[in-house]
């Protein structure tokens, strides 16, 4: 079992390419193995995220936008990426220390509104944001408005991402913005909304700062909002 020897022979760009490919293929096991390999090689983990796994998930997003990939490939890609990240998080203290060096794009609180049990789109947005340098607090689905606001205050979030997949829950997005106004917190957080029944027009009308049409679009919008602030 001469792993070490083989690993040191593996060039970094080969490692990144393999990590990217694992995400493109949605291969969780291989992604986890390649994350372990990065640890063995003492490779720069943030570089692995950016040039390996993250590059993979960005390409998955591009392929989805083009209509070459569909929801199964998108979800499997995100899961492979998460599997890799989970292995590297074993040495999280080190990773966290390094995070200081890495440019943190912003802190995001994300979730699907109360009454709505859909969370695939939201989870994909969370993965894309995480892969691109955001610190993400994913509250899951069926989240009450108060919990969004409490978490955002506690974590000093920059951005709130609200997903609604039903015409009957999208009005919760408007109510959350109203609640922020009532509490005098509206200026503290940027708000992005998304979900099948939602549109850019709806976002503008309820006073949201951005609308994410899909996971890739949401990432671009989040980066734009961070630049502005």
């Amino acid at each position, binding site marked *: 079992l001469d792993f070490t020897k083989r690993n040191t022979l593996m060039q970094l760009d080969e490692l990144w390419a393999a990590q990217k490919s694992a995400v493109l293929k949605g291969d969780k096991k291989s992604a986890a193995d390649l994350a372990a390999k990065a640890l063995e090689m003492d490779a720069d983990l943030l570089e692995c995220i950016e040039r390996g796994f993250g590059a993979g998930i960005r390409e998955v997003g591009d392929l989805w936008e*083009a*209509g070459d990939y569909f*929801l199964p490939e998108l979800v499997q890609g995100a899961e492979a990426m998460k599997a890799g990240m989970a292995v590297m998080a074993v040495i999280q203290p080190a990773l966290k220390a390094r995070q200081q060096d890495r440019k943190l794009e912003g802190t995001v609180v994300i979730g699907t509104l109360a009454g709505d049990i859909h969370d695939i789109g939201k989870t994909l947005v969370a993965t894309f944001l995480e892969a691109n340098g955001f610190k993400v607090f994913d509250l899951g689905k069926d989240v009450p408005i108060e919990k969004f606001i409490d978490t955002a205050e506690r974590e000093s979030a920059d951005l709130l991402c609200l997903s609604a997949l039903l015409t009957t829950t999208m*009005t919760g997005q408007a109510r959350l913005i109203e609640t922020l106004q009532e509490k005098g917190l509206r200026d503290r957080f940027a708000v992005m909304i998304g979900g099948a029944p939602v549109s850019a027009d709806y976002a503008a*009308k309820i006073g949201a700062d951005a609308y994410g049409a899909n996971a890739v679009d949401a990432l671009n919008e989040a980066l734009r909002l961070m630049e502005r602030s």
Partner: protein
Amino acid sequence: MTRQGLLDLLKTRVVLLDGGMGTALMKAGLQPGTPGELWNLENPDAVRGVHAAYFEAGSDVAQTNTFGGNPERLKSYGLSDRFEEINAAAVRLAREAAGPDRLVAGNIGPSGKFLPPVGDAVPEALEEGYAAQAEVLARSGADYIAVETMMDLKEALLALLGVRRGAPDRPVSMCMVFEKKKRGFFSPMGDKPGDAARALADEGADLVGANCSMGSAQMREMAASMVLEGGAPAVMKPNAGLPETVGAQTVYRQAPEDFAADVLAMTEAGARVVGGCCGTDERFIAALHRALGRPTS
């Protein structure tokens, strides 16, 4: 209604469905976060009123207020123990509005779960849920079963199996959602409309089609691809364009006449069962009724 009865009716004319239910109930005061299906028990007049308005506008069919009435969805609202009651009441309300001469379709929506690799739903459990809901809807008097908003052909096929088991003597309508991508129309899982229609018809669906997700202008572009030569008649149920908001209300700005013109074009492409999904109200159905050249009652 028998399978043959429905097919015979479709030979003589296009069947006009109704419009949106969830958006109509919200207009009547349903609060966000409350499942609309609960109103079958707690505000029956409102639900019956929506059906009555659609019949007034010219609908041939009322679709029951049971889109989220499957066991999985009700469980997420803590309403599991009221599953049978909610579904039975919905059929009763639709029948009260329909009378003996018009049709009641027992509406079934997606489980909200996803099959692997996207989610971890167990196929047998999904099929069982569809069978259970179809059984209650049929026993309560639905003329046929209308499954809608399926995102995954695999789940749609399981739903079809379940419905045929739960309601073996009722015709089944199967509708999926599609999106326009750069390379054409696909379901979110990548199923093509024509392939999905054929697969569902091969497994015994009596009607196949598309609903929700798109406005009428886009769905019009794909209508022909779901019309099977000599096969199951096609159903088309688009949304009323994209939603906007005024105050706390969600509104759809598309003109009913534009919607009706698009849907009329779908019937010219071969669709035999048409209606509206999210955002369509009785004005849209009335406009469609006029566009189809039906006499006003």
